[in-house]
């Protein structure tokens, strides 16, 4: 756990051992939304996403192992793997058709206040994010919504930093392209 600039602030007991549940709980409280959004971006279903987050946390607690590298990235990788396991349990392909999927955002909330607060531009952006390829979508979720660094994302995905950064940039470019295409005036 040494040498982590973004690691949790853990209380060390008098015998020098780190309480695993303390740092797990702290990471969950701090990155609750990001962990759930990452799982949801994979599973496309809220219940499966919650199960994935729960299963990952429980698995880490039971293993009682010291995380390799950054602790936050370690937990995100566990959640990502658990979400993929959820997909395998359901027996579907990793890419769920959009018409059956639950998007990442709250604009679909039946509450009229949520719908009124969502502008048309935001709604288009939400649909564009949900339509991204899975790898690019995960990179954007972890970078924008979970607040991870590229190094943490690379560790979470077990891939080189350059690959992760490239996916992120491509995702942004695709979003920009989609939004510009939506804003183009119709030619008469």
């Amino acid at each position, binding site marked *: 756990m040494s040498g982590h600039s973004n690691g949790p602030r853990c209380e060390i007991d008098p015998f020098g051992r780190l309480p695993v549940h303390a740092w797990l709980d702290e990471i969950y409280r701090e990155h609750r939304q990001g962990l759930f959004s990452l799982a949801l971006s994979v599973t496309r279903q809220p219940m499966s996403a919650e199960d994935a987050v729960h299963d990952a*946390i429980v698995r880490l607690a039971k293993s009682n192992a010291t995380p390799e590298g950054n602790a936050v990235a370690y937990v995100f990788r566990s959640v990502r793997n658990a979400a993929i396991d959820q997909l395998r349990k359901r027996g579907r392909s990793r890419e769920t058709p959009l018409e059956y999927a639950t998007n990442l*955002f709250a604009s679909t909330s039946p509450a009229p206040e949520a719908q009124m607060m969502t502008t048309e531009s935001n709604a288009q952006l939400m649909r564009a*994010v949900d339509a991204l390829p899975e790898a690019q979508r995960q990179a954007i979720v972890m970078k924008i919504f979970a607040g991870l660094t590229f190094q943490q994302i690379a560790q979470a995905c077990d891939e080189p930093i350059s690959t992760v950064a490239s996916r992120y940039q491509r995702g942004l470019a695709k979003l920009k392209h989609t939004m510009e295409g939506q804003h183009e005036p119709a030619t008469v």
Partner: protein
Amino acid sequence: MNRQPSNPTPENFTPPDEEQSAALEAELQTLSLRQPSDMLDARITASLSPATASLNPPVVAPRHWHLALTVAAAVALLALAGVSYYIQSTGTSTPPIVDNPPRDNRVADPKNPQQPVVVQATHHFDPKPIYLHWSREMDAGTLESEDSGPAHAIRRQDVLHRVWVDAERGVMIQLIEPRERLMVSKQNVF
């Protein structure tokens, strides 16, 4: 091995400049994300909390453990003294062994139902098996029945305590058997 990407980059792809990326990132951060339910928090808390006690048993003794241990020992001693006093005052200890004890058969007085009465005590001295038996009867009230009319109920509790002693071999075997029965006697209404 060269793999074709599932979503090829558009021909007119141009990477956004830093300013455009910053603007798009800022807009993305304003989006309202779908929130996890409160059930997830409860599940996580429940999973981590009991695991602290079972998977990771506390290895660090609490502060002032010696003081807590002393207080617990004092409480246990007081409890033991209280139980001992209670046993002696209620006469539930083993009756003294006597030679040729008289047999006393008494029935609990229905007019005084709350007072338990020792009905019978029998002792036999070694070398024959020592047989200790004491029982009590308590008034259990009146039972009403439409078919048979009122009946008087008496609850009888027995503690059969048998002791076998072989003095030559230095062996003692004890058997304690509690029993409880409800005896009902029909009362004449008229």
